[in-house]
């Protein structure tokens, strides 16, 4: 067999065709999810008709969503920012160092089957400033709090803890624009700043 010096994959890199996105998964990948405002509403329809989740799934999913909420809920240093981001009520949480931070209320939760037969997963949902509902970190946004929907598998991925800042969590930004001012080269129209 001869060795070859070029790439085998003929992956056509199309410029301007979304190399950058919030998730690296393919758009066609979707999993079923059920959305409820409360565990009671979930249990009321469990086992009915086409629903393949049980009352037990409802309870387990809610417990999981609450656990994720405790660990990964959006946390804000400022009540106004929290209320603006979540369209209303936020609750206060005392940190061990005595400072107060603010969390949105748990508006509901969703349960769904993860890909690859790894069982049921759950995520808490929060109201957004725009009147929708989203999972922690804004990975997935839903328009309502009831019914079946299809979401990306990443919607059920683990969330970064907001107790300590972590990549892709949203954090209050103090200042911007501190990079980019010192460049020496480039700067004319389409000219490159690299080399």
């Amino acid at each position: 067999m001869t060795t070859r010096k070029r790439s085998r994959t003929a992956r056509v890199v199309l410029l301007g065709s979304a190399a950058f996105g919030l998730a690296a998964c393919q758009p066609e990948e979707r999993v079923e999810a059920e959305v409820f405002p409360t565990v009671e509403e979930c249990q009321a329809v469990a086992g009915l008709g086409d629903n393949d989740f049980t009352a037990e799934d409802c309870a387990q999913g809610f417990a999981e969503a609450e656990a994720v909420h405790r660990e990964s809920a959006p946390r804000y240093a400022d009540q106004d920012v929290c209320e603006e981001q979540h369209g209303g009520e936020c609750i206060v949480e005392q940190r061990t160092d005595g400072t107060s931070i603010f969390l949105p209320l748990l508006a509901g939760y969703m349960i769904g089957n993860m890909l690859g037969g790894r069982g049921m997963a759950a995520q808490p949902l929060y109201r957004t400033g725009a009147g929708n509902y989203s999972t922690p970190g804004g990975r997935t946004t839903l328009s309502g709090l009831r019914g079946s929907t299809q979401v990306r598998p990443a919607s059920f991925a683990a969330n970064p803890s907001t107790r300590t800042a972590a990549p892709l969590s949203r954090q209050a930004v103090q200042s911007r624009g501190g990079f980019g001012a010192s460049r020496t080269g480039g700067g004319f129209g389409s000219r490159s700043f690299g080399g």
Partner: protein
Amino acid sequence: MQRIDLGARPDWKEKAEAAGFTFHHMDGAQYWDESSAYAFTLEQIERDLEAPAEELHAMCREAVAKIVLCEDLLTRLCIPRAHWDLVERSWANADPELYGRMDFAYGGPNHGDGKAKLLEYNADTPTTLYETSGFQWHWLEDMIAAGRLPEGTDQFNGLHEALAARFAELFPQGTDIHFAAFEDAVEDYATAETIGWAAREGGMGAHFTDIRKIGVTEAGQFADSDDRVIGTLFKLYPWEDMLRDDFADAIQEAQCQFLEPAWKAVVSNKGILPVLWEMFPDHPNLLPAVFADQNADALGPNVVEKPIFSREGAGVRIRAEGANEASSDTSYDAHPRILQQYAPLPTFGDDNTVTGVWMVGSEAHGLGLREDRSLITQDTSRFRPHYIEA
């Protein structure tokens, strides 16, 4: 190494447009030019370019180990004193490198002593990656499919696969990586996008942010234009500029892994060239070089003057017999300079050709050639494809 007039694909422009390669012409001049292409033998690629590039990369790492501990050299390389620790620590922590491009004067056996001579190592923010790894690759596929190059014709271009594999080696699957560039600089954006594709192929999440929109959170971390905290940042923006920006002081505590790492600030710096020459005198792939204030006798009469931070030929001045030329771009003139022995580029017709070898990690994985009527290669210099004879 020969330049062969193969003729362009009749539909290359449509193909470029369809691929989003909109900058095939720049400033009214043609930038991508496939009317002819460079032909190499496999031996020229492997013996003359690939092996020396990998050896030079290892030598650069030896030079970094020395420079980051030497205050005199850090001063000469204009690394701001406040950030010596950052640079040193990134080296001591073995922060991994992703990519780079070495530019050589090389023309095959009939040019000079036949050895590729390192002109500079853009180890921090090299561009032209899309042209090299993508459009050039498809050019060859098309030429073989059309029967205009024989089956078995190859190309030194494993870049896309190598980059994807490098990401998978460096980061856990699903790691979120931010890619920062100046959004309105099309070439830079194309390079960042090309690497973003490779990162996704390697299983990573890729997110773009304009460099100027990066923020600092209350916890002192960097955040993108949507306030999302940045854990890993590929930045198409040179370290020498970053270290002089307002946010420079935030880098140390930002818990952010950078690509390239901070120690690349001393590799892409042309001040490494005199250091390399001192450490490895008479190495066949190095040109004699000194700092401008040092004794230049060893260089002989034909000398090139280069600002330590220059890119795209800016600020370069050639003072050589029959070859006097100075870059009209003086934006780097305030910086200290090095002197390097002049190595003429090979000429093909009226053109002078520079040979760029791409590194991924410590391995050489690709080749891109630029040519210009000027002796100094600039950002508008034409890009031509190459192939390895079957």
